[in-house]
């Protein structure tokens, strides 16, 4: 490999995606619609919630091709850099590729420029990537991310939703994406309070995914038998931190106990109507 050197007038600057295109490493967009039954795995249901210390991101682990489960341990929540994360829903292959490119884009910028992008700048970069992906989305490879991070200049967590055209929408409190977004979003909406503590927000994210998995066949619930738990990460002033599986297993057990308790104290089913 030779050094990629450019003249001053055609230098790609800190733009890694542009550099990848320039050296011919960028994948071509598909030109035809996806044939039925090709079976591209799709990932579903991610949520992000603002809380006292920053933001939390959560995603289930299931990828489906049509009615089949194609992966049980896919990851949909990733660190974008130290102070931000990206969660993806949609065609798994292009989505993971977008994450990789986005991570590299942020790191590349940081190294070339010697300073990192603002959170707003990162959100805009992702917007451009989603928009550039539109031709592929039209052929059935849609990717819809959520971007969240800790804004160091404001000292608060912020989160952004996108549509397939690259439309970028900053959300105040929470965002959900993917096939289970309706159910997960409703649970979050009902349980959300401003300034939730970490443990409360982890519980809320878990319950949202749990409900989505209950209602939506493409969303996977916790799998205690295989030890597969959702991926949940907090992004605070301390950076991106994954919530450990052991903690999630405990929280899930507590959540199930609460449900059982609620059920046993409720009126018995089939009681008389008076």
């Amino acid at each position, binding site marked *: *490999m*030779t*050094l*990629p*050197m450019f003249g001053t007038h055609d230098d790609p600057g800190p733009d*890694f995606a542009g*550099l*990848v295109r320039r*050296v011919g*490493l960028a994948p071509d967009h598909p030109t035809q619609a996806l044939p039925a039954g090709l079976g591209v795995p799709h990932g579903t249901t991610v949520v992000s919630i603002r809380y006292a210390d920053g933001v939390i991101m959560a995603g289930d682990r299931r990828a489906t091709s049509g009615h089949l489960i194609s992966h049980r341990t896919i*990851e949909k929540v*990733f*660190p974008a*850099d*130290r102070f931000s994360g990206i969660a993806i829903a949609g065609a798994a292959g292009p989505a993971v590729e977008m994450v*990789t*490119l986005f*991570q*590299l884009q942020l*790191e*590349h910028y*940081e*190294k*070339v420029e*010697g*300073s*990192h992008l603002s959170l707003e700048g990162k959100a805009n970069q992702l917007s451009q990537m989603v928009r550039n992906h539109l031709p592929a989305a039209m052929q059935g490879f849609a990717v819809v991310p959520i971007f969240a991070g800790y804004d*160091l200049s404001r000292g608060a967590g912020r989160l952004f939703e996108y549509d397939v055209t690259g439309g970028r929408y900053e959300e105040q409190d929470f965002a959900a994406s993917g096939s289970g977004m309706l159910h997960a979003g409703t649970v979050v909406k009902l349980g959300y309070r401003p300034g939730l503590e970490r443990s409360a927000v982890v519980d809320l994210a878990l319950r949202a995914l749990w409900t989505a998995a209950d209602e939506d066949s493409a969303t996977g619930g916790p799998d205690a038998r295989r030890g597969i738990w959702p991926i949940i990460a907090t992004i605070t*002033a*301390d*950076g*991106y*931190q*994954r919530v450990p599986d052991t903690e999630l297993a405990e929280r899930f057990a507590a959540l199930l106990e609460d449900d059982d308790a609620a059920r046993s104290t409720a009126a018995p089913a089939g009681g008389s109507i008076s």
Partner: protein
Amino acid sequence: MSMPFYVAPEQVMKDRADYARKGIARGRSLIAAVCADGILLCAENPSATLRKISEIYDRIAFAGVGRYNEFDQLRVAGVRHADLKGYSYSREDVDARSLANAYAQALGQVFTHEMKPLEVEILVAEVAHEGGRDQLFHILYDGTVIDEPSRAVLGGDAEAIADRFEAAHDTSASTTDVLAAAVAALAGPDRTLDAEAIEAAVLDRSNGRRTFRRLTDEEITAAIAATSTEARDEGADEVEPAPVEVPVGEVDVDQVDAVLEDDVDDDD
């Protein structure tokens, strides 16, 4: 039609080399040295923003002396080379040796084919997962690559500084001690250097995926103060210096090169 003058190739090369060396000699020097925790890079640089030392990749750092715009162009090309290679193969396939070779070719090409050679000397350092296998590649303006085992000195005053530093350098010493020795060697016997005049960074083995970390002015001041106190203790009776407080455990948000979590895209 005018007749071109004949100039012997030896003369052309000699003139170019002299030109490049003169340009490099005008700038201040730089030291890279293996220490217990990784590789320390330390440069005399009065500017707080125009940097001579920077991160290339997870375990690779770059340092340059000479003409700023020229070595900075090489630095950016190195970041691109490494990032593209990591993207198209894997992060572990990015190594300093291949990068040093690419630099050597680029510099050699310019030296033999262009009117003006690049007035730079650069260094590519890669920290190994365990000690004893770190790599330092010192690349000259004409593309000569020197593989240094444990330390390298770049710049116009390199020989004198290397002599001073060699005596003081211990590869099993801590980063702080090696930094103090490096600053003393850069300063020489006749002057002292403040932390503001020193740019330092370390490729720290224990730093997670991205090992590169810039040292703050406070850390540099502390390192210099610690050794000058020792020197004074030996020399006795002098005024006690003001204690330097180093913030511990504080998140430095400006530290762009701060550690990402260990698991950040390790799983690609």
